[in-house]
């Protein structure tokens, strides 16, 4: 048998007797907690994206470009503030007029509208209740419909909360 043929044989084919004996040997394992002891001494690299970001940041600091970017960012942040200030200054008279109207008429009108709406709701509830109370069957149906609606809401809430969260 030449070297190439010998290399293609499996250990069991090469020498069955020796292989049979050696394959009975115990595969030893280290004691419990071995993984943790090793990992406690291993430095794990940061994720690739973080390492790239760190390298990019280092490059920016080294070349001084970081000041250019910081300046551009500061100026960029000022633009909306300046624009808003200019807008307010240009329309100061209209803004005061609007504020005067709001205090004099807008707030009282909004308050009266809210009151009108609430009294409408109370009136409607009162009308419905007056119509249903003498009719025992209609009242039962309304209560059942309300309970079904309540159970449906509770069921939907339970399903939403118990659904498995998305995992990677």
């Amino acid at each position, binding site marked *: 048998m030449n070297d190439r043929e010998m290399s293609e044989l499996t250990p069991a084919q090469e020498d069955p007797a020796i292989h049979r*004996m*050696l394959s009975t040997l115990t595969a030893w*394992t280290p004691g419990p907690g*071995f993984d943790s002891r090793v990992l406690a001494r291993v430095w794990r*690299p940061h994720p690739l994206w973080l390492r790239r970001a760190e390298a990019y940041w280092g490059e920016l600091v080294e070349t001084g470009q970081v000041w250019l970017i910081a300046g551009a960012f500061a100026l960029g942040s000022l633009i909306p503030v300046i624009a808003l200030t200019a807008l307010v200054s240009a329309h100061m008279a209209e803004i005061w007029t609007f504020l005067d109207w709001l205090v004099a008429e807008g707030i009282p009108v909004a308050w009266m509208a809210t009151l009108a709406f609430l009294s409408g709701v109370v009136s409607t509830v009162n009308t419905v209740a007056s119509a249903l109370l003498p009719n025992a069957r209609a009242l039962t149906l309304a209560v059942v419909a309300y309970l079904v609606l309540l159970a449906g809401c509770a069921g939907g809430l339970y399903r939403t909360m118990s659904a498995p969260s998305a995992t990677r």
Partner: protein
Amino acid sequence: MHYSPDLSTATDQQVVEWATDGAEAAYRELLRRYQRPVFSLIYRMVRDRELAEDLTQETFVKVLNAIDRYRPEYKFSSWIFKIANNAAIDHLRRKELDTLSLEGRPDATTPDRVEATALQLGDGSESPLDELEARELGTQIEHAIGRLRPEYRACIIMRHVEGRPYDEIAETLDLPLGTVKTYIHRARAELKETLAPLKE
């Protein structure tokens, strides 16, 4: 970022790639795959459980801390076995411990030390009779392996216990392919001679 859907079916290269991205699960997977073979190899070489565990730990710490320098054109198993074997051989050279005694290391002077350095045979899952026979057979085989020269021992363990191909053993042990074949051939001959009474 690289996310492996199932680490247990991923190749070593894929797991290493994931580990270089800092994923702890990938480190644990490499430990899971290699702690038994690496520990078994080192334990059979130095035959002191405590020392074998220290050397195995050193091997893994060295490998995992240098994971970003791993070159994927080489087999990961070759790399880790090379470091494990070097750790064991370095220790043997330092201590000049070439032979295995199943009754404990020659420098074990107290009964506790003798017990600590004796190989523990059998995994306890067999019946008492089977266990006794397995222990007896295992003892004889371990004894025979322990009598081999360290370089023969490493070669025969990697070939017949770990089932590694010749070229990987040569790469792992930094030996020419022909030398590995010769060592394994001689190791088998010595084992047959030592274990001949078992066949009768």
